[in-house]
């Protein structure tokens, strides 16, 4: 028994199985078929060599040597075949056929002659080939074809722009190089050089690398791949080799079996440990980056503001990973879509980038389906069948890929929380157009998870704030209602007294007599009485409005009635005009509601509240602008006259109400936050402006929004600019049916 023969046997079987595996993955693919030929040829060579080494006599060894060439001849040819089919070089197909013919009809016959294999060498590892004078011809042929394959691959590598393809070709190049070195070593003993032919290692390695590059659509870094393979070989050579050697040398088979059992158990651990160590050495820089990101993700939870959070994440990604583009899309409940929250670098802010995606978009559907990262290049390699099976509705991968390109994504990392897709990270190309490795994806997923948690947290906080504000709001209104009711009662009693006194003045005979006697006093007296009465009546109205305004709202839709828009706006105007602290008569109020506009189904008091608030806000904006102009005489607008215009039109059963003012307007920043409760652009520090019931508290617009939404409507700010005024649009649906 020659122990040196065993590696060749193992390599032979390994190569054949590898070829079969790759072939079975895709039986119709030309690269896979050529790979099978390559692997089979190699396998014949290795198993043949095994037989040579095991041979008892030189004659037998020579016979096996000749058999070996049945495979060996086709190794360079199939390698070239593989390179051509992998690179899809159609124009070189004819050469492939030609070389196969050359192999079958020239080299195979020659290799079976004494001119090719002259006899047998004997080395310490056993019998070995002895080259005849024709063998160098084959070596030239071998070198030629290998070089041809190499050059082809290298040219394509240089031309290739997509990182994944580049990496694949790189794999093949390195695989071929390794095989070339190893193969060459195997031929040296043919010429009498005593070097142990360890070619089987490089052949197995070469084929593994190629198989890996074909089968896997996500390739690990080549450095890592080779290191892993190397470590694997070393560890298992030791684990299997040492017991064998002991058994062979000292005939301690029993002990060595035990030893092998122990070593084999330890093997995986040693392998993993070495692999981890090697990774740390190989990827020192990367690991440092990962560590930075890992630490960074831990700090995320401390940040409580979504915008700040997303900005920070994007910034950190650009800085650490040196990607060309990074962005965050987050789910927005209101619009039921994924909205671009933050991106970098800002140069990329061209409008071509999609700002939001809905759940109907193929890309989002795909994310929901895959529930894991998406790599742009891999989409075309995704197992489509699987997706179709899982999902009733078909996902158009091409569209998804197109959308990925449109949002500038090379890689998308989604963050799911249970079944909800909270959002996703978008990453552009990596530095040097490198590929995203498993490690990258894994660290990014960690980051994304932390980000998702942090975002969930901060969204929760916002929700909480809103709820608190609502609670505050309802409580406030309830309290106000109670207070208004109690105070109204008191004030009404006072008013009753004033009324009665005024009446008494007219009614009391003594006074009456006096007036009668002094006609010159009568006019002034009547006027004063009328003035008192008028004011009491006004005060009464204000108090009643206050009470109805402040009454806790019942928002059930069954209480909705058909409401005439004009009526509700007129009523609101009436109310705001009653506010003596607001000089509504100093501004022009223009209201044009077309006759015959459909009624709205709703709650009159609530809608009235909406318009009262809108009018008050507009008034405050105008007042603020007036104040501003007063302090900025240089703007030279002494004749500033405020106006509020309310117009309405009906489009497709929707009433669109425009409320335009020429007040102070808003900056973009304020505009963004306008509907967030407790946010007010009014200078609350300066109490002067906080004069309305709800305005100035920051609840105003939020309340409006809540009410409008409760009516299935919408409010948006259409247009605003600092100092130019603002335009709001309230949309309300027309009533569908008549209420009782």
């Amino acid at each position: 028994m020659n122990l040196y023969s065993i590696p060749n046997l193992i390599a032979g079987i390994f190569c054949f199985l590898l070829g079969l595996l790759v072939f079975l993955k895709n039986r119709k693919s030309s690269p896979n078929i050529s790979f099978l030929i390559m692997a089979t040829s190699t396998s014949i060579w290795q198993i043949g060599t095994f037989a040579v080494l095991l041979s008892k006599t030189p004659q037998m060894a020579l016979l096996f040597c000749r058999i070996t060439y049945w495979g060996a001849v086709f190794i360079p040819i199939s390698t070239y075949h593989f390179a051509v089919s992998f690179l899809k070089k159609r124009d070189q197909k004819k050469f492939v056929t030609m070389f196969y013919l050359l192999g079958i009809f020239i080299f195979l016959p020659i290799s079976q002659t004494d001119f090719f294999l002259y006899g047998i060498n004997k080395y310490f590892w056993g019998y070995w080939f002895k080259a005849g004078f024709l063998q160098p011809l084959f070596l030239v042929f071998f070198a030629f074809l290998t070089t041809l394959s190499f050059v082809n691959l290298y040219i394509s590598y240089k031309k290739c722009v997509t990182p994944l393809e580049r990496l694949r070709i790189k794999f093949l190049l390195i695989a071929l190089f390794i095989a070339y070195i190893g193969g060459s070593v195997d031929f040296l003993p043919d010429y009498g050089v005593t070097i142990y032919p360890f070619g089987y290692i490089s052949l197995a390695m070469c084929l593994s690398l190629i198989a890996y590059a074909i089968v896997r659509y996500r390739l690990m870094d080549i450095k890592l791949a080779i290191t892993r393979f190397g470590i694997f070989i070393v560890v298992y050579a030791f684990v299997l080799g040492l017991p064998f050697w002991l058994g062979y040398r000292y005939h301690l088979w029993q002990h060595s079996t035990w030893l092998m059992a122990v070593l084999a158990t330890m093997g995986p651990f040693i392998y993993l440990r070495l692999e981890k160590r090697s990774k740390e050495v190989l990827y020192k820089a990367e690991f440092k980056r990962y560590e930075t990101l890992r630490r960074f993700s831990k700090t995320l939870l401390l940040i409580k503001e979504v915008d700040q959070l997303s900005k920070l994440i994007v910034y950190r990604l650009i800085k650490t990973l040196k990607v060309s583009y990074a962005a965050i899309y987050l789910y927005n409940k209101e619009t039921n879509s994924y909205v671009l929250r933050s991106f970098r670098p800002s140069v990329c802010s061209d409008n071509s980038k999609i700002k939001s995606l809905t759940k109907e978009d193929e890309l989002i559907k795909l994310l929901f389906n895959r529930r894991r990262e998406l790599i742009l290049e891999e989409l075309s390699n995704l197992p489509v069948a699987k997706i179709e099976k899982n999902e009733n509705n078909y996902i158009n991968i091409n569209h998804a890929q197109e959308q990925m390109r449109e949002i500038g994504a090379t890689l998308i990392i989604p963050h799911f929380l249970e079944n909800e897709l909270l959002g996703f990270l978008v990453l552009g190309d990596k530095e040097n157009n490198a590929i995203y490795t498993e490690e990258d994806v894994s660290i990014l997923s960690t980051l994304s998870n932390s980000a998702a948690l942090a975002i969930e947290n901060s969204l929760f906080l916002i929700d909480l704030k809103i709820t608190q504000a609502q609670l505050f709001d309802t409580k406030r209104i309830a309290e106000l209602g109670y207070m208004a009711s109690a105070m109204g009662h008191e004030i009404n009693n006072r008013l009753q007294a004033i009324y009665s006194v005024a009446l008494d003045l007219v009614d009391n005979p003594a006074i009456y007599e006096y007036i009668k006697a002094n006609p010159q006093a009568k006019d002034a007296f009547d006027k004063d009485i009328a003035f008192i009465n008028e004011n009491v009546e006004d005060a009464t109205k204000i108090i009643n409005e206050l009470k109805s305004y402040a009454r806790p709202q019942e928002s059930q839709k069954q209480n909705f009635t058909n409401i005439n828009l004009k009526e509700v706006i007129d009523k609101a105007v009436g109310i705001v005009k009653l506010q003596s602290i607001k000089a509504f008569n100093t501004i022009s109020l223009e209201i044009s509601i077309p006759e015959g506009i459909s009624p709205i189904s709703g709650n009159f008091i609530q809608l009235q509240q909406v318009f009262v608030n809108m009018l008050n806000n507009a008034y405050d904006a105008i007042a603020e602008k007036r104040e501003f102009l007063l302090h900025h005489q240089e703007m030279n607008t002494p004749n500033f006259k405020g106006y509020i215009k309310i117009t309405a039109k009906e489009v497709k059963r929707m009433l669109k109400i425009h409320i335009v003012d020429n007040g102070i307007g808003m900056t973009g920043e304020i505009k963004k936050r306008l509907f967030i409760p407790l946010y007010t652009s009014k200078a609350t520090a300066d109490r002067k402006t906080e004069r309305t019931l709800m305005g100035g508290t920051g609840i105003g617009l939020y309340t409006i929004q809540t009410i409008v939404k409760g009516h299935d409507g919408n409010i948006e700010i259409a247009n605003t600019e600092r100092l130019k005024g603002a335009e709001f649009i309230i949309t309300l649906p027309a009533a569908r049916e008549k209420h009782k």
Partner: protein
Amino acid sequence: MLKLLIIDDEEMMERLAKPFFERRSYQVFYSAKGEEGLQIFAKEKPDVVLLDLGLPDMDGKDVLKQMKDIWGKSKIIILTGFNEEEIKTNILPLGPDAYFTKPCKLHMVDEKIKEMITGNQ
């Protein structure tokens, strides 16, 4: 001569409303409290009662109910600071003969009383 009972805790009512109605030939009784008002009511059995619902010692609604029990023939007019809607839900079920929201003009109350009495006769 019509007997009028005013129950209202507003001092103003005694000072102004009482002479107002007296000038119009009512016999006016006045009380600022519910308990006392009920006693006067039981004793005098007035034709008309002007009742304020916000009393210091009793709920005006209870006063109204008890009056209905004691002597059902009196006309009871509610004077209240509540608004129309609250009156509709809270006061009308109690069955007053009329109501006025404060502030109101007293001669309108006078007109209303006369209308009620003549309508009744």
